[in-house]
């Protein structure tokens, strides 16, 4: 079924079209939620609520840009709203001086690099993790992040700097990458060049 046919079916509230759309995009969207959530159960709750919003607001999609990107934005906003509603985010984003993360050598099993990286991201404190997800992976600007998280733009920048440094340390300790030197070529550091 083409994307246009899926859209038309979903606009008519057709269950088969909704199921097809869900099957097509849910795997990637669940990984998005997993990076924001505390655990898989929370991630699935975010995914469920996000897709409910997708289907209820699908009539507002104006065919500007990719449909997947439109879904992804709704999912990300849903994750942020849930974190804020549960007040789990506010408790950690104000922690300016987060303590170092103790990484157990056996906490991340031997898996492909993509999952290793995601698991390392999830080891970060929730505030650092959220800012890093939004800036480095989802592509939001610090100004947009500040508005979403109800913080100052400078706070978003400082949180991202600390998150990036902490993630580097985790990736090195997990031997996913070598310790980067100043102005290093990251792709060479992770063995891709």
């Amino acid at each position, binding site marked *: 079924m083409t994307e246009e046919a899926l859209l038309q079916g979903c606009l008519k*509230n057709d*269950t088969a079209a*909704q*199921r097809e759309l*869900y099957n097509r995009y*849910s*795997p*990637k969207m*669940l*990984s*998005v939620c*997993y*990076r924001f959530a505390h655990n*898989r159960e929370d*991630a*699935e709750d975010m*995914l*469920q609520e996000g*897709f*409910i919003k997708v*289907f*209820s*607001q699908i*009539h*507002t999609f*104006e065919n500007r840009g990719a449909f997947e*990107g439109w879904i992804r*934005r709704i999912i990300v*906003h849903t994750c*942020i*709203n849930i974190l*804020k509603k549960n007040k789990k985010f506010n408790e950690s984003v104000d922690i300016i001086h987060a303590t170092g993360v103790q990484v157990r050598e056996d906490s991340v099993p031997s898996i492909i*690099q*993509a*999952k290793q*990286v*995601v698991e390392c*991201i999830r080891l970060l404190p929730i505030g650092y993790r959220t800012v*890093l997800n939004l*800036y*480095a*992976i*989802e*592509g*939001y*600007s610090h100004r*947009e992040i500040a*508005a*979403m998280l*109800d913080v100052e733009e400078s706070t978003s920048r400082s949180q991202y700097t600390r998150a*990036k440094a902490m*993630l*580097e340390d985790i990736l090195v300790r997990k031997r996913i990458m070598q310790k980067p030197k100043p102005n290093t*070529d*990251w*792709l060479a550091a*992770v063995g*891709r060049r």
Partner: protein
Amino acid sequence: MERNFKSDFERFLKESADQYKMYPSDKVWKGVNNSLHNRKKWYGLGLLLLLLTGGFITTLFVRGPKTETVVSQNSNTVTPSVESTSAEQKQKAIVKNITDAPNYKPAVKSGNNILPGILSSDNNMFASEDNGSQNIETENTATPNESMNSLALVNETNNVATTENKTTFTSSPLDEYVPHSNTQKDVAAVNENKPSLKPNSILQNPYTIESVVNSFSKNKPSFTSRRRVELQLSFTPTISYRKLTANKNFLRNATAQSTPYNYAAIYNSVSNVKNVVTHKPDMGLELGLTAKYAVHHNIKIKAGMQFNINRYDIKAFYHPYDVATIALNSGVRIDSLKTIAEYRNIGSSSQSNWLQNYYFQVSMPVGVEVLFGKNKNVRFGMAGTIQPTLLLSERAYLLSTDYKNYTEVSWLTRRWNANTAFETFVAYSTGKLNWQIGPQVRYQLKSSFIDKYPVKENLFDFGLKVGVTLNK
């Protein structure tokens, strides 16, 4: 948002994250599907609940009056009367009537026989005289029918036939009182063996079915009319709308606070809310089941259950990723709530959209109905009700304090509310069915939102109500 990543590290992170996929469990899709398609289930459940409640209310009201037969002390006839007093009080009244009779003699047990006589509520057997035994049998607690049967048994076996059942002598219509077919013969047979009954006003007319029926038709007993309870099913398509006003408590509290809020802006913004919002009415629905109890020929008390759907549309413009700020009156201070909004109140026409707010409620209307006119087939009526209301489901887009954005904050919606309704109608009877049709207006007394929110919204709707009652 889709910007060029300046850092290879960021590109590395994004590529790694995009490569990673996870497959959700089945319960996620079930939750999504149920949420999207659960309205029909809610309606079905609501209708079932409505019918069960209506049936329960009807069962409470439809308990027929108790009728009873008492024996008059001055008459040989039976005067039926309808009373609602307890069986025990009736028994006492009956016994008193009989014991006050001039020729009353208590029951006499002679040997193993019980002499026949007048049956009282406690089923003591009375006889006028007995030359023999002085024993008084007071333990016979058989019902009237059983006592008559016991006469037959006495005649046949010459033994006392007693039962250990307590007298129930509860109300029973006259036509249920059917003495034993051999009663008269048994009475005669017993009378042959025992001293004849001393004639008295009561005993001259034994308690036979003919005397009872004849006296009933002659005396034309004064029944009080049995009150009827009607059950009406109603359907009302409506036009739903809302009235927006400023929350005065919020304004008073805002002006009294010494916090760095712009009171003038808040005051002006809240009090002018209805001028900056574009909204229009939408179709709604009401489905109800009502029990009506006639307290008078023209007045009925009504109570029941109904389901209402209220909807209206708001003009908005799609503009995601805005941060909407809603000022809230917490009683002690003015707080603010920030949330992500996807719609603006003002925007370009290319992005305009109509957002639909809806409220799905269940109510228990209680009120009075008045009928006019004497024509049995066509009458004019009016009714008014007060309706405690529970909000079952809703989708409400709320306006931010600066009027710029619309956002959903479900916990700001009030769950319990109250409505009033007024209707006029024409009642028409087609024989088996009674129809009522006429306009109805319904108004929500309290705001849809809790007192913290600076804007008050009162829903109201107009509709054409059609009701049908089964004419028994």
